[in-house]
C-alpha cells in the first residue's frame, strides 16, 4: 500500500494509530480508463499536486538565494532493486543529471556538491563548486560502480557538515538525501548528529524511494526540510525538480552585502598588437592555451573563460548581470490561474487560448486572475514552469505588484 503524500504536520504524531482511524478508500482515487491503463489517473494526481504546491507557496517570504547544497546518493544494496527500470541507481543518476542542469539554471550563483554512501561509510564524490559539467562527468562514473552494503546517514551528515560549517552565514546551507534503503547503519547516536545539524542551520530534505522511515521523518521535521516518497519515476523527477526552487530562508541566515565583480568580455590589446595570455580556469589541464580574449577580474586581472566563477587569486565572485536576472522571477512568483469549466467562461472573452491560439476545448480552462484572459492547460503549465510571466498581463501592462 503506498502513501500518496507524506505530510510534515505535528498533528499526526498526536493522532491515533492508523488502524484506529476510519477507512481510507485509497483505491477509489485511481480510475482505470478504457484501455485499462492507470496513467491518466497518475498524471492527474501529479498535476493536482503541482497546482496545490504552487498555491501553498508562501508569498513575501525571504528566500535563500545563494545556496550551498550537498546531494547524498545512497549506493547501498537496495539501490540495485529493479522496481524502477532498469535499476533504481541508474534512474537516480539520470535524473540527477537533469537536476544539476536545472539547479544551475535557476540558481546561477549557487554551489553544489555530491556525497555517496555505501558500506556504512560516506565519501565525497565532488566538492562544492559552481561548474555543472564537472559534477555531471563525475556522476557518470558512478554508473559503473557497484552498490553494496548499508548506507550511513550519520556519516554522510557529518561529512557534509564539515564543509558547510565554514560557509558564510548569509548563504543557505542544504543537504538533499536520496534514500533507497529502509535502514541506516550509524557509529553513534544519530540524535546527536541531528541536533548538531540543526545548530549549524543546515536544512536537510529526504526523497525516499521505498517507504517512510521514522529517522528521516524526524531529521526533516527538526531541520525544516521536506520528506517525500516517490510513486513512480515521473513523480521522482517532479520531486527532484521541486528542490531547484530556492527554499524560504531560516531565521538564522544573516543578510549581508556581498562584493561581486562584473567583468566585461575584452580583448587584451596593447595599441595595435594583441596580447595573448593563459587563463586561470584551465591551469594544469591539457586544454591550457594562449588566447587574447576573456573575462578579466576587476580586482586582480586574472583571466577566466566563463562566468560565473570565483576568482582563485583574490576570492571575488565574478558574475554577469543576466546571471542575477535569472533569479529575479523568484521574487515575483506568478499566481495560480483560476480553473473554470469551459461553459462558465465569460462570453466576451475569445474562445481561443491567449498564448498559443488553439481553440479551447476543455473540460477546464485556466484564467489569469489579473488580466482575466483564458489559457489552455498546456500553456498554463508552460507559463508557470518555464516562462514565469503571463502574456496576457504583459500585453495589458499589468505589473506584478498591482492588484
Amino acid at each position, binding site marked *: 500500500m503506498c502513501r500518496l503524500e507524506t505530510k510534515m504536520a505535528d498533528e499526526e504524531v498526536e493522532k491515533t494509530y492508523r488502524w484506529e482511524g476510519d477507512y481510507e478508500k485509497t483505491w477509489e482515487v485511481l480510475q482505470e480508463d478504457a484501455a485499462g491503463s492507470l496513467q491518466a489517473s497518475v498524471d492527474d494526481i501529479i498535476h493536482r499536486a503541482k497546482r496545490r504546491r504552487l498555491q501553498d507557496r508562501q508569498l513575501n517570504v*525571504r528566500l535563500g*538565494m*545563494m545556496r550551498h547544497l550537498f546531494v547524498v546518493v545512497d549506493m547501498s544494496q537496495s539501490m540495485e532493486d529493479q522496481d524502477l527500470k532498469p535499476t533504481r541507481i541508474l534512474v537516480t543518476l539520470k535524473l540527477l543529471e537533469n537536476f544539476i542542469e536545472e539547479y544551475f*539554471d535557476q540558481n546561477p550563483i549557487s554551489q553544489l556538491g555530491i556525497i555517496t554512501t555505501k558500506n556504512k561509510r560516506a565519501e565525497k564524490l565532488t566538492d562544492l563548486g559552481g561548474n555543472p559539467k564537472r559534477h555531471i562527468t563525475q556522476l557518470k562514473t558512478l554508473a559503473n560502480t557497484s552498490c553494496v552494503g548499508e548506507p550511513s546517514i550519520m556519516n554522510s551528515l557529518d561529512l557534509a557538515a564539515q564543509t558547510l560549517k565554514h560557509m558564510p*552565514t*548569509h*548563504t543557505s546551507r542544504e543537504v538533499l538525501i536520496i534514500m533507497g534503503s529502509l535502514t541506516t547503519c550509524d557509529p553513534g547516536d544519530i540524535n546527536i548528529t541531528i541536533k548538531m545539524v540543526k545548530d549549524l542551520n543546515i536544512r536537510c530534505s529526504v526523497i525516499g524511494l521505498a517507504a517512510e522511515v521514522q529517522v528521516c521523518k524526524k531529521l526533516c521535521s527538526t531541520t525544516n526540510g521536506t520528506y517525500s516518497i516517490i510513486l513512480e519515476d515521473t513523480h521522482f523527477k517532479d520531486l527532484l525538480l521541486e528542490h531547484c526552487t530556492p527554499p524560504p*530562508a531560516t531565521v538564522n541566515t*544573516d*543578510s*549581508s*552585502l*556581498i*562584493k*561581486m*565583480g*562584473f*567583468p*566585461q*568580455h575584452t580583448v587584451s590589446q596593447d595599441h595595435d598588437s594583441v596580447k595573448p595570455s593563459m587563463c586561470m580556469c584551465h591551469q594544469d589541464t591539457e586544454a591550457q592555451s594562449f588566447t587574447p580574449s576573456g573575462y578579466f577580474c*576587476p*580586482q586582480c586581472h586574472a583571466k577566466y573563460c566563463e562566468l560565473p566563477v570565483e576568482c582563485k587569486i583574490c576570492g*571575488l565572485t565574478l558574475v*554577469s*548581470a*543576466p546571471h*542575477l*536576472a*535569472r*533569479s*529575479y*522571477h523568484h*521574487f*515575483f512568483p506568478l499566481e495560480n490561474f483560476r480553473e473554470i469549466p469551459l461553459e462558465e467562461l465569460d462570453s466576451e472573452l475569445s474562445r*481561443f*487560448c*491567449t*498564448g*498559443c*491560439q*488553439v*481553440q479551447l476545448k476543455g473540460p477546464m480552462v485556466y484564467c489569469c486572475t489579473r488580466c482575466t484572459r483564458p489559457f489552455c492547460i*498546456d*500553456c498554463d503549465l*508552460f*507559463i508557470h514552469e*518555464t*516562462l*514565469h*510571466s503571463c*502574456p496576457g498581463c*504583459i*500585453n495589458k*501592462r499589468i505589473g*506584478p505588484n498591482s492588484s
Partner: protein
Amino acid sequence: MAEGEENLMVVIVDCNPVWWGRRQQQQAEPSQIVLSHCLDAIQVFVNSYLMLSHRNRVAVIASHTSKTHFLYPKNVPDPRLDQRRGEDGRYEQFATVDDTVVEEIKHLMTSDTTNSELKTDTLLAGSLAVALCYIHRLEKEYQAGQQLNSRVLVIKAAEDSPSQYMNLMNVIFTAQKQNVVIDACILDKESGLLQQASDITGGVYLKIPQMSGLLQYLLWVFLPDLSMREVMALPPKVQVDYRAACFCHRTLIDVGYVCSVCLSIFCSFSPICSTCETAFKLAKPPMFKSKKRKKSIQNGGPSTSLLQ
C-alpha cells in the same frame, strides 16, 4: 535538412503607430519608407522562405502599443479570402499568407480604439511570450523522431522600453531553454535588450543602415537556415556589455555590492538595502583579548583584599 525535420520561423513585426506616424511626418521626401513598404518587403521575404522548402512553416505576429495580434495563421479562416484565392494565378500558399497578413493588419490598425492614455512603447515582450507559447504548442504536436527547429525574427522600429526588462529577460531565458534562436533586425535606434537576446540565444543582430534596402538585408542575413550560418559571412557579432547598472545611480559598474536577500546591486557599501530595507550585519573588527593586562595588575599592583 535531415529527414523528419521541419523549420518554423515566427516573424514579429513592430507596428507601433506612434513611431510609424511620427516617421512619416518627419520625412521630407515622399519616397521614404512607410509601414506599407515594410510590409511589402516582409511579404516577399516570407514567400521566399516558404519557397525554399516544402517543410518550412511560418507565423506572423504584429506587435502594437496596446496589444499583440496574431496575423497568420488565423484561428478562424475567412471565407471571403478562400473565394478570392482561386481567381488569380498566384501559388496558393503565397496567396493565403499575403492576403491574410494584409487583411489582419488593416483590421488591427482600424480597430485600435484605446480610451486610456496613449502609450508609446511597443509590447515586444508580450509578442515574444505569445510566439514562445505557439512554438511550444507546435513542438508538442510532433512525435518522437520528428524535430521542429524554430526561430523568431524580430523587426523592431521603436526604442527599448526599460519597464519591460523583467518580462523580456524571462522570455529570453525561456527561449534559451527551449532552443529557440532570436534574431533581431533593427530599423532605427540600437537596442541593448535585443542585443542581449540575440547573444544569449545565439541569433544574429543587425541594425539596417538604409531602410530602403530592408528586403535585401532580410534576404541576405535572415533567410538561410540555422545550419547554413556557420559557412556564411554574416555581420560581425556585437560585443554586448553585460556589466550591471547600480540601482542608486544607474551607472555601469565593474565591482559592486549585492544584497543577499533581494539581489539588488549597489556601487558602494551602505548599512541598509534601499530595495528590501534589510539591515546588514557589519563585519566587526577582530577583538584583542586583554588577558595579559589584567594579570600584570593582579600580580604587580596593589591589591585590595576583600577579607580584611
